[in-house]
């Protein structure tokens, strides 16, 4: 399995590089390629089994957009042919149309999806999250955290292609239940942090998508113990959800 991590030198907030470290600990044979801003991405010349990018600062978003706009057609081709992408936190916004800041700034993004983000740097939105990821007969509870200055909106909600159906917490924005973006195997979510370490059932699903079946995860018993406790806690109506 070949995993390409895009721009880990700047897309690494909130412990998110552990998403890849956890995969590597679970699949020691996995080949992890870190692509920096000054490199040509591996996906230009090859098709990695997984392309991962994590949360970054607002200035870093500009650098990433500037870099990836050179490879728009290739990225579109990879999405269309089913390459697995996992984008976490505000990496999601880069694949939408634009980011509109409350200060009047508008950042043009890559435009693969009909979404736009509204940003207010004076207000940080914090919450817990629990939702359902469904695909065919699979139904996986997803738990995690949201902490962001933005929310994203579909230009036409009828065309929404969501990754997760929200049970508690906000969706792509607080008004909708659909969380994240899904098209073929492109998966993006506003959930931040080590989502794979926190969600072992989803990690197993992702590994299957990458061609690794029946994987035993690193410290799976302890991971599942923490996961089950979190699912129970977040499902408990008495647990406050907003910070």
């Amino acid at each position, binding site marked *: 399995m070949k995993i390409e991590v895009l721009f880990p*030198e*700047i897309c*690494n*907030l*909130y*412990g*998110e*590089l*552990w998403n890849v*470290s*956890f995969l590597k*600990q679970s699949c020691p044979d996995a080949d992890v390629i870190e692509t*920096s*801003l*000054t490199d040509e991405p591996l996906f230009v010349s090859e098709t990695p089994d997984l392309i991962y990018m994590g949360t970054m*600062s*607002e*200035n*870093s978003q500009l*650098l990433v957009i500037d870099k990836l706009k050179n490879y728009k057609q290739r990225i579109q081709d990879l999405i269309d042919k089913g390459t697995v992408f996992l984008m976490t936190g505000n990496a999601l916004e880069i694949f939408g149309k634009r980011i509109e800041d409350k200060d009047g700034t508008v950042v043009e993004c890559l435009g693969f999806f009909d979404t736009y983000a509204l940003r207010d*740097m004076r207000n*940080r939105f*914090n919450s*817990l999250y629990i939702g359902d990821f469904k695909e065919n007969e699979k139904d996986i509870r997803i738990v995690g*955290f949201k*902490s962001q*200055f933005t929310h994203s909106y579909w230009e036409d909600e009828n065309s929404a292609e969501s990754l997760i159906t929200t049970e508690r917490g906000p969706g792509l924005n607080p008004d909708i239940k659909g969380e994240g973006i899904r098209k073929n195997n492109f998966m993006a979510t506003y959930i*931040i*942090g*080590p989502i794979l*370490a926190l969600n072992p059932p989803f990690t197993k699903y992702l590994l299957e998508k990458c061609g690794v079946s029946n994987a035993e995860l*690193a*410290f799976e018993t*302890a*991971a599942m*113990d*923490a996961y089950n*406790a*979190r699912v129970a*806690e*977040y499902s408990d109506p008495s*647990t*406050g*959800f*907003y*910070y």
Partner: protein
Amino acid sequence: MGKLRFWIALAAAKLSIIALKITKHNGTNFPGVIALRICPQFIKYIGKPEKIIAVTGTNGKTTVCNLILDALAMEGIHPVNNRMGSNINTGIATSLIQSSGITGRCRHKLGVFEIDERSALRIFPYLVPDHMVVTNLSRDSIMRNGHPEYISGILTKYIPKSTKLIMNADDLICCSVAPENECVYFGIEKMDTDLDHCENLIQDFQICPKCHHKLEYEYVRYSHIGKAYCPECGFRAPDYDYAGCNADMDKMTIEVREKDGSAEYKLLNDSVFNIYNVVAAVTLFRQLGYSREKIQYFFSNMNIVGSRYDTREIDGRVVHLMLAKDKNAFAGSRVFEYISHTPGKKEVIIMNSCQGDAVHWSENICWLYDCDFEFLNSDDIINVVVCGPRVRDYRFRLLLAGVPEEKISFTEKELDTPEELLLPDNDNVYILYGTDSIKLGRDVADKIEKKIRDINEGGVK
């Protein structure tokens, strides 16, 4: 109207102080809360001291403020300060209310304030520091502080242009703050323990701010703290105006070299982050015009307050109480690194889950994955006891860090952790508590103390 509101706010706040005294309540922030609720621009109108020193930064600001205040007390100077209150606008307002009379005039000529970096926008329009120390900027609470670039942006936007900054040149995030302000830089020259590359999970300044190529470091102390340069475009970290050098851990001294001389100062603690705090304070005092001899006198008579670090020697074993700020991976990593480098057998109790979050919601534990738990994977750390609301998350994270399962002890309740200790002879037990579990940490230490005494009196181990 603004001024009328101010007078009403001041009167109400003064009355609240009397009410708090009569009812024997602490309420260290309460007068400021009342005042700002009535008059949001209260800090603008209340009398301020003639000279103001401020200290901000992610870590070390409380310690640096305490060093400044303790030193000034030796000179018989007792500035208005927020040592006993909070470091946000309500805490600043409270301290100004307490130091003013009913006319609102400040009774002190000098003010020393610790300022929460995110509160800059609510404080700096109205309070203009003459000198401001920025200790460092790093990742902190994810929910509150987002990321360090966000915080440096806030400081740049709101620090008054007339404020002279005292900045950590070894921290390029810190150095990016308010580039138009006059500033002096402090730092620490290469130390024996430095590396040539970062081994920490957090490294928030990896690319050149000018050409975006990867930076290299002449030396790395931890994370982005060190001496950086860009091999592509020649960008370099600033030179030191005040250079810490020749740190001697046996003598517990550090030399601080300036353009026209140098002097040795007593260190209060052998951790690198506390050495930075001393160099920062020395720099401030030199900027204020104090002689090197006077500053040497200050430091030879000071200690770090017991709520941050304390030890108890009990019948051949040592119990260390250390603050490891919850939800702050950067601070946690420094504590883990410090423990890993101390000699002897060690047991560590990790009890710095946020108790408040456990009541109101559930702690965001992403910070555990920014924090270098890997330091605890060390031969001489014989037992790591995890407990509290996030006990399962800690156990899993320790396993990922490579700590063997048999070295991890697990108990739900903090007060049960002493039962999980091995307590061999010459043991060092580190109790790591968060900002809202200081008392709980002491209670655990009391139980350990009792257990050790029972062992030595022939009781059950």
